């Protein structure tokens, strides 16, 4: 057996039958060998990385069921019994329930707003010729590569002057604005791929532009809307930087901020088990949703990069 990690090149063996798909049963021996070594090697590496990905998550779940003393004394031991009281404490005393509610409100509002406004802008930019079309398109798309933090300093005062600081609806408007660049970029490309004839036929039949859009084009754009919707949902649900700057009132905290806040305050109280319960509570719904909608999520998140 070869033990080196990188097998030497297989010398060309003349006179071998040409191996085409589904052809000969006899295989050149060296190649089998090499394939086997590579196979063991690649499985080994892949398993190691899988363990490295999963172990921190497993550790978090285990810790969330332990009492504080065993968290400190033996970090990797199994819980002596399942301390569900950690979860109860996190949900009520540590305000996780409120953080969940705030997050659902903010993400619900901004997701709908992003999809409606994003598809309206994208449709017009993709389908109509007018002066300034390209300029507006690049204005939107350019927003993807600018460092958001630069804008956040003045934005704080813009939002403050409008009386929108520390409000749920203010946060929704900002989330929508910062989700528009990718949404418009993605949906403009998507609307361009839809056939023009259907919209024209509807228009000839007397439908207005607005009606054509809502009743014909939007339903046709459903696959694109689902992809970009998942992308925005995860981005907005996991958002940390925008609320950290614009939403400093503890009562209005969203999940990510709330947990970071909790980590700071529980550090003083010493309730680590409650904190871990909160962390796992925030992780599990997203992981569960991912496992159920795995194909759509991967499609939604990789769609932008493959364009």
């Amino acid at each position, binding site marked *: 057996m070869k033990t080196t990690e990188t097998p030497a090149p297989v010398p060309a063996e003349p006179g071998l039958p040409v191996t085409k798909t589904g052809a000969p049963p006899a295989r050149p021996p060296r190649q089998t060998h090499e394939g086997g070594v590579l196979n063991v090697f*690649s499985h080994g590496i892949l398993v190691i990385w899988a363990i490295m990905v999963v172990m921190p998550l497993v550790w978090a779940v285990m810790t969330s069921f332990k009492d504080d003393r065993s968290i400190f004394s033996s970090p990797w031991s199994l819980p002596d019994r399942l301390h569900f009281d950690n979860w109860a404490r996190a949900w009520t005393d540590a305000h996780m329930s409120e953080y969940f509610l705030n997050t659902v409100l903010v993400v619900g509002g901004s997701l709908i707003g992003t999809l409606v406004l994003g598809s309206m802008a994208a449709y*017009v930019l993709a389908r109509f010729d007018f002066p300034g079309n390209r300029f507006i398109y690049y204005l939107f798309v350019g927003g993807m590569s600018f460092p958001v933090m630069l804008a956040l300093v003045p934005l704080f005062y813009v939002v403050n002057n409008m009386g929108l600081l520390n409000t749920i609806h203010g946060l929704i408007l900002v989330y929508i604005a910062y989700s528009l660049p990718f949404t418009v970029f993605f949906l403009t490309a998507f609307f361009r791929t839809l056939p023009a004839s259907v919209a024209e036929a509807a228009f000839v039949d007397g439908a207005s532009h607005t009606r054509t859009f809502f009743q014909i084009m939007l339903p046709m754009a459903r696959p694109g809307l689902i992809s970009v919707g998942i992308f925005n949902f995860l981005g907005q649900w996991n958002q940390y930087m925008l609320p950290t700057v614009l939403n400093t009132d503890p009562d209005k905290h969203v999940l990510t901020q709330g947990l970071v806040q909790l980590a700071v305050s529980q550090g003083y109280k010493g309730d680590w088990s409650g904190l871990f319960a909160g962390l796992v509570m925030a992780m599990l719904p997203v992981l569960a949703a991912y496992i159920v909608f795995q194909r759509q999520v991967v499609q939604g998140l990789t769609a932008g990069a493959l364009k």
Partner: protein
Amino acid sequence: MQHGKYRFIVGFLAVPLGLYALFVVWPFIQSIYYSFTDWTGLSPDFAMVGFDNYTRMFHDDIFWKSLEHSLLFAVLLPVVTIGLALFLAFMINVGGRRRRGGPVVTGVRGSSFYKIVYFFPQVLSIAIVALLFAFAYNPDSGAINAVLRGIGLDGLQPLWLGDPHLALWCVMAVLVWSTTGFFVVLFSAGMASIPADLYEAALLDGASRFTTFFRITLPLLWDTVQSGWVYMGILALGAESFAVVQIMTTGPGGPDYSTTVMVLYVYQKAFRDGQAAYATTIGVALLVVTLAFAAIVMRLGRRERLEF
């Protein structure tokens, strides 16, 4: 299609464009303007000071440290993450044992399982990931030192985030952990679309599988790698590095400023120290770095597009 066309266009664009202009474009323009003032952010009064903020920035040691760390993030993180992801994706797609009569190049058994698991960190918030690892790195009760003790390395108990020489690497490792899976899945999709005949022909000609990676896989995947590189670099300069450094490191910014990055420094100057104008100056520097990074990667990576 002319009737009412312009009214429709204006009607549909007004709200999204207005919102975008007010909350995104206008603040960007303002912040460049503010970088030439002495605005504190606390009072509405300010005066123009010309290039004073920029002069101050060039003499600010912490700024240079944050720039150095940000550049390290932007250069090193994509290299490590994308390199590791390409390697894992290649193993998933080409490392399979050849089954009798099957194609020459196959994916490993359970390839879809690996892809599902590797993608886990991508759906979690970077803030949650940062918190989790902040505890894992804890020198006394954290998971990592406990593993070291468990395998008999009692003498090796680093302070991790508390050690100025290690803290930055700890933070980077977390970003590698959380983003590699996304690129594995992305590259796997690209590799799956490369026709198997190309590998067959190369293997018949005597190429090893590792040669096929550099001669076939990488060139055909180059466009995806390049856009992934830019994407990763922008994240590493911006939101992701802000979250991990702010949440994980003490200060925040690490012991002896050993982990501070530009985006965190902007945040601290504006919202902790009441120096909004100076913060926007550092923000402008961050903008320059980001755009220069994207331009350099696009330029270096430019090659003939390969059709297959």
